[in-house]
Structures are given as structure tokens and as C-alpha cells.
């Protein structure tokens, strides 16, 4: 811990120095300020799922890296939009957790869904779904260009899934809490659990 604090100290010193040097360059200054130095410089922990170089697509079709989720706690699961039973339940569990955290004053948490079904869940399809389900601004429902990224993210979250026909997937019901560095802090599997219990894995 001590070493970490010293490292952070050095990093923040560098940031200050960096801003001082970049004073003349307004744009550069803004960029620097927008990216906390600790996030951009500190190497990922070995246990971080962000070591995975997966690429995802936002609802606007923008490509992002899994690693870009770094910087705040994340509550993550997988779903697909044509899913009739389990996925709405997973989302509702995550929303209950969101409410619970909100009550406790924890508001910096990112709620993330990744689609199993990148073929049918195109960015516009997901955008519509997100609006319909009234997911808050703390949410992102990502898709991907192919099955590759969902498959590898699933392996790290311990989620199993299988396409059973054109419409449906069999899949695990697992919600995972990641810390701001992408390390798994807690998981809950099964629709019979109380999602509020996951709040203990998120530090304010």
C-alpha cells in the first residue's frame, strides 16, 4: 500500500509538472486534465480483466476497448435484446443494486451489459432497447463486431452461453462487480439472490 501511495505521489507530481509544461498549449492542457494520470500511466494489475484486448461497440457504433471502462467501479453482466425472461431479470437485479447504491450515496458506478448476440444486436437495435427499458445515464449496453469479444469477456466473468436457435440463448445468470482497475471483487449467480448484497463489494 505504501509503495502504491508513493507511486501515486510521483504520478501526481508528474501530472502537475506536465500541466505546467503544457500551459501554453490549451488543448493539450484540457486533454491532460480529462485523463487522471494514475489511469493512463499505472500498468494494469495481473488480475484485471482489462488485460483482455477486447473491442466493443457503443450504441452509436463507436469502437471502444474493454480497458476504457477503467477508472470507476463497474457492475457487469451479459444479455441480448430478444431475451424474454432471464435478461430483463438480470437488468432488474442490476437496477435494484443501482437503487441501493444510490440510497447509500454511491453514485460513481458504471452499469455495463455486453450482448451475446452481436449479429442481431446492432448498435441501433440496442439503442432502442436501452431507451425502452429506461436505463439510466450510468448504464452502457455494448455490442461487438463479432462473437469474439463477447466470448472472451464471458470466459473471464465465468458466464457460459449457447445459441439454441435463431432467437434464443441458454446462458448463465451472473452479475459481477469490478473495482476501478477491473479486478473482480464479487459475483452473484442465480435469479433467487438479493442483488442488494452486491453493494458490499463497492467502496464509496
Amino acid at each position: 500500500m505504501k509503495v502504491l501511495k508513493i507511486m501515486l505521489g510521483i504520478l501526481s507530481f508528474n501530472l502537475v509538472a506536465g500541466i505546467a509544461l503544457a500551459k501554453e498549449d490549451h488543448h493539450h492542457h484540457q486533454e491532460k486534465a480529462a485523463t487522471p494520470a494514475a489511469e493512463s500511466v499505472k500498468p494494469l494489475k495481473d488480475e484485471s480483466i482489462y488485460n483482455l484486448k477486447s473491442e466493443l461497440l457503443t450504441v452509436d457504433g463507436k469502437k471502444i476497448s474493454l480497458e476504457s471502462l477503467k477508472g470507476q467501479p463497474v457492475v457487469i453482466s451479459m444479455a441480448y435484446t430478444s431475451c424474454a425472461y432471464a435478461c430483463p431479470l438480470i437488468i432488474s437485479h442490476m437496477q435494484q443494486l443501482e437503487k441501493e447504491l444510490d440510497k447509500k450515496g454511491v453514485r460513481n458506478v458504471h452499469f455495463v451489459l455486453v450482448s451475446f448476440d452481436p449479429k442481431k444486436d446492432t448498435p441501433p437495435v440496442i439503442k432502442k432497447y436501452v431507451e425502452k427499458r429506461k436505463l439510466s445515464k450510468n448504464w452502457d449496453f455494448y455490442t461487438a463486431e463479432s462473437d469474439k469479444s463477447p466470448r472472451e469477456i464471458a470466459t473471464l466473468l465465468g458466464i457460459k452461453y449457447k445459441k439454441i436457435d435463431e432467437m434464443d440463448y441458454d446462458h448463465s445468470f451472473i452479475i459481477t462487480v469490478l473495482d476501478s482497475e477491473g479486478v473482480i471483487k464479487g459475483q452473484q449467480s442465480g435469479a433467487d439472490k438479493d442483488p442488494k448484497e452486491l453493494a458490499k463489494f463497492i467502496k464509496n
Partner: protein
Amino acid sequence: MKNPKRPLMLAVLALGVFMSLPSWGNGMILIPAGSFRMPAFLDKTPRKVNSFYLDKHPVTNAEYLSFVEQHPEWHKSSVKKIFADANYLEYWSGDLDFDKTSGASSPVVRVSWYAARAYCASLGKRLPVIDEWEYVGQMPFKDKNDLKTVILEWYGQSSEWPLPSVMKRSANTAGIYDQHGVIWEWVEDFNSSMVTGESRADAALDRNLFCGGGASSAADPSDYAAFMRYAFRSSLQAKYTVKNLGFRCAKDKD
């Protein structure tokens, strides 16, 4: 992703290396499109498989060594814990040195799913999916050896070590070697067999997998063998490494 040209350069480089070294010798075979019947405990309806390329034999120690030479992040001393368990390449004596007793042309084992995938990607390939693997795996041998007998005999044996060289047995009718009888192999969607009943859907699949498997084993021994494979896959996690689990790569036709 800071340098968008880098993956392309690497791909071109990998392709160049691959084409200039035909002595690597793991030729791929074009598998014709077709369909196969899933083992009875899963789904009896025939499943269609598109034409694709498959490595003639499992990836060997020598081939894997060439890969880790180019990709230090997959050295046994530097691999990240989330991508491979502590026994990754356990039998290799060093980062760039496999156990001589197991031989350059023996299949590489003790590799995780992530490692296997990275290897294939470095050559512009991918892992086969279960359907592709099972489709080819049901093709009969070229010689008169009965597939079922070979498989069940192997499943009944304690595993052999050091592993024999690849391509010592008969190829199947497509010209593919060693799918049965030497090692188990990773597939891209190994985590699509459910065993931990986390949802109602899982539970239903569990029943199909276990009860169905048990029931059908008496009637059709090849189903029993397939059941063993599906159960084994479903017991895996992507970072696991196992002493008789290796892999081979596939590639889309186009």
C-alpha cells in the same frame, strides 16, 4: 490501439513468416461443408457446418515454441495469471525450451484457452467451434480402425507420457490426424456447455447433458464418448491448463 497500423503490420509479418517457413508443416485441410448429427443427449437434429480449414494435426511443442519466441507475453515466466493457471507449460524446462523427452513433434499441452487463441490469431487463424470439431471428429478413419473402439479404448486408458508424436496414427477420411487417442483439444465455444445450474435454462440443459448422456450410453457407445467430451469441456475454465489438453487451429474458407 495507439498505433492503428500495428496489428496490420504484425499480421503481414506473421503471414510472411508463415509462408516462408513451410517446414512448420502444419498444413491445413479444407473441410467440405456438410452436416452432422449431434450426440443424442443434446440434440438429434442434424447441424449444418460450413466449409472451413482445419489444421491437419494438433499444434506441436516446436510450433508453439516459435510462437512464444515472437510473443514474450506468453513465456511461462511472464504470462498473466488471469490468462493461464500456475501449471501453464509446466513440463517445459524454460521459457524457450520444451522438455526434450516429450519431443518437438508431440502436441503442446498445458496451454490455456487464451494461449491457444493467441497462437491461432498470430497466424491469422482461430480455434474451431464445437460443431466444426465434432463434425470432423465423426468422420471415419482411412484404415479399418473403428472410431468408437479407438475412442473408448483411449478414454479407458490412463494418459500416456511423454505424449507420442503427431500423425503416428491413421488420418480420417478428410485427412485430419489425432482428433482422438492422443489429447483433448480446446474449442472456441468450450464454455457453451452448461453444468452449473444458474438459471432455469441451465437446469434444463443439465438434465439433457447428464440424464440423457447416461441413458443413451447403453444404446450407443459413440454417444457415450461424445458425452465425455461435452462434460469435459463444460468442466473447463479458460485459464485452465491440463496435461492432456492441447489444440489445433481452424480458419474460415474466405
